[in-house]
């Protein structure tokens, strides 16, 4: 496919910008590192041997390609458009996160880095990073908010089993954004030996581009699978958004297919009209945090506000800069779903399809339901089932008043 001069997919530019978003807003200590990483990544992605190794591990270690599945019972239940699920929850470690971790750890190895660090919220990215670091024999340290360490004890134990060291972050308010601050502080302190594996399409350039590229395997496979299975592209591709890596991975290969609507679902928490949500695009303003200019939840003084969502994976006050761009140029639509809707869909999908979704893609299902009605029986919806719900079972049980 040739890329038109005004193509949506031509970004970022040389400054790492997607329109007016993105960039490299980091302390001087990290600038040489960021520039070296950019160069190393450009070299790697031009090297067929790097791509071949990445693809080999995706196939035999991660278990790709993930299936494309027609969700017949959900389709029947909603009574509208056909719903097709991209089954990224079947990946090794249970979510899309590992696609990116694998790419970044291979790059770290290529750059001769001897130490891996990562931030994590619920622990999925931490587990995926620890997994790949274990596979390649690299020491791994994961920064996790102290509150999350308590809430997500099983994932903390998993990371430890995988040989990672978990730092409970008590600075700030002890949440995901503080974990990211602490990882950045560690990186500033040990810049030479450390590779920071960022878990989403945010952070300073080249991270938003690099993470997107590694995750784009989702959209590339899905696009091919749709053509193969039903001979046409979907009317809409839907994914949930915290930082936005699974959504960007799904959307990117469809950016130039202008008939395919791209729909991102943010976490509306207790409602967009309350302070308790994590919808950066629908409830935030442009600002600068964690290395990039993007939409952020912030107050009148430019102080960052904590996000809230039932799903720890969506609970981040920012969003990847490419989503901010796609939102502003209106190539993608960004909607939201509440905690209650996610909880309802979590149970519905389990009962109807025998698939226990993670709470994150359960948000997507709530909007897929509306969209199915809107498009009617001739419509085709592609949704990324980006993670499985095993990790959420104890929390959901608690919320439903069941003791497990």
């Amino acid at each position, binding site marked *: 496919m040739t890329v038109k001069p005004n193509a949506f997919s031509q970004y970022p530019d040389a400054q790492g910008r997607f329109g007016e978003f993105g960039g490299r807003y980091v302390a001087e200590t990290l600038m040489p590192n960021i520039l070296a990483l950019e160069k190393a990544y450009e070299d790697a992605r031009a090297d067929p041997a790097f791509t071949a190794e990445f693809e080999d591990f995706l196939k035999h270690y991660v278990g790709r390609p993930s299936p494309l599945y027609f969700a017949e019972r959900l389709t029947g239940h909603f009574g509208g458009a056909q719903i097709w699920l991209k089954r990224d929850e079947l990946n090794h470690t249970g979510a899309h996160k590992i696609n990116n971790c694998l790419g970044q750890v291979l790059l770290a190895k290529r750059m001769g880095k001897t130490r891996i660090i990562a931030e994590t919220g619920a622990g999925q990215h931490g587990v995926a990073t620890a997994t790949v670091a274990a596979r390649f024999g690299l020491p791994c340290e994961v920064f996790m908010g102290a509150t999350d360490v308590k809430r997500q004890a099983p994932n903390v134990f998993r990371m430890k089993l995988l040989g990672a060291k978990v730092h409970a972050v008590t600075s700030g308010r002890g949440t995901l954004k503080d974990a*990211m601050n602490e990882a950045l502080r560690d990186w500033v302190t040990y810049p030479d030996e450390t590779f920071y594996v960022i878990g989403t399409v945010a952070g300073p350039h080249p991270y938003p581009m690099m993470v997107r590229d590694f995750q784009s395997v989702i959209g590339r496979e899905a696009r091919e699978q749709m053509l193969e299975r039903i001979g046409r592209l979907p009317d809409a591709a839907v994914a949930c958004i915290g930082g936005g890596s699974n959504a960007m991975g799904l959307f990117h290969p469809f950016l130039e297919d202008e008939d395919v609507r791209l729909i991102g679902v943010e976490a509306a928490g207790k409602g967009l009209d309350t302070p308790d949500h994590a919808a950066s695009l629908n409830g935030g303003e442009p600002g600068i945090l964690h290395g990039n200019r993007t939409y952020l939840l912030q107050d009148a003084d430019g102080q960052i506000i904590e996000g809230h969502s039932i799903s720890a994976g969506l609970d981040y006050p920012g969003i990847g800069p490419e989503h901010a761009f796609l939102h502003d140029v209106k190539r993608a639509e960004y909607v939201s779903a509440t905690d209650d809707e996610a909880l309802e869909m979590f149970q519905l999908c389990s009962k109807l399809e025998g698939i226990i979704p993670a709470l994150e893609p359960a948000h997507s299902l709530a909007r897929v339901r509306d969209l199915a009605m809107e498009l009617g029986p001739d419509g085709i919806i592609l949704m990324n089932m980006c993670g499985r719900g095993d990790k959420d079972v104890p929390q959901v049980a608690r919320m439903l008043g069941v003791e497990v």
Partner: protein
Amino acid sequence: MNRLTTTFARLKADNRAGFVTYIMAGDGETADLLDALPAAGADVIELGMPFTDPMADGPAIQAAALRALDNGMTLRGTLALANQFRAKHPDTPLVLMGYANPVHHFGYANFAKAAAKAGVDGLICVDLPPEEDTELREALAAVNISIIRLATPTTNDDRLKTVAEGSSGFVYYVSTTGVTGMGKGAVTDVAEAVKRVQTATGLPVAVGFGVRTPEEAAEIASGGADAVVVGSAIVSANHDGGTKTALELVSRISAAVRAAS
């Protein structure tokens, strides 16, 4: 030409290093502390603008920022403190230091106007490297406020050129890779780096991050730095013992810096 230029010229004429003190706006009795700093020996004052996510700061300044925010400090409030200080102290340079987002949210042009009105001489934005500061730098240059850039042990000669371009006032040399308040870099390495940065930028070099005691400050001062910055130690003294304890520390460090150079 602003207060920073005249102050560094005077220090050079006196053949001594300057002493830069950092405090956090809104943490404790900031107005009183600010007012007393020049008499206690501060040549230049850095006033921290609190931010929720201070990713280049160590525990002491992180905690100070959160206390300040809990006390209701805002960027507007910080500018009001600067204004109040300037009314009584016409000559001591005042530099605001913090992170980009509150300034970005205030609006770069609005901020430049308000900061000039408050008598601010310089701005250090930790997460605004030269690649990203053009718009703000131009707005500030129009009102004679310097953008003070950071150089670090990882800043090689190529990047020093980038740092020098458009820099004014002084260059802040971060003596060690790491966050504020950790150990300082080895003294010999720092002296060598200071010379490198002075040569490349033609600007005075202030050394900070991890300088905590009068002895350490004196070492840095005698190693050829144009100024020594102390932050976390003063912030901690202020929190632990109040204004009086902080000022005592400032006096002791100031005496050591003066004696050293």
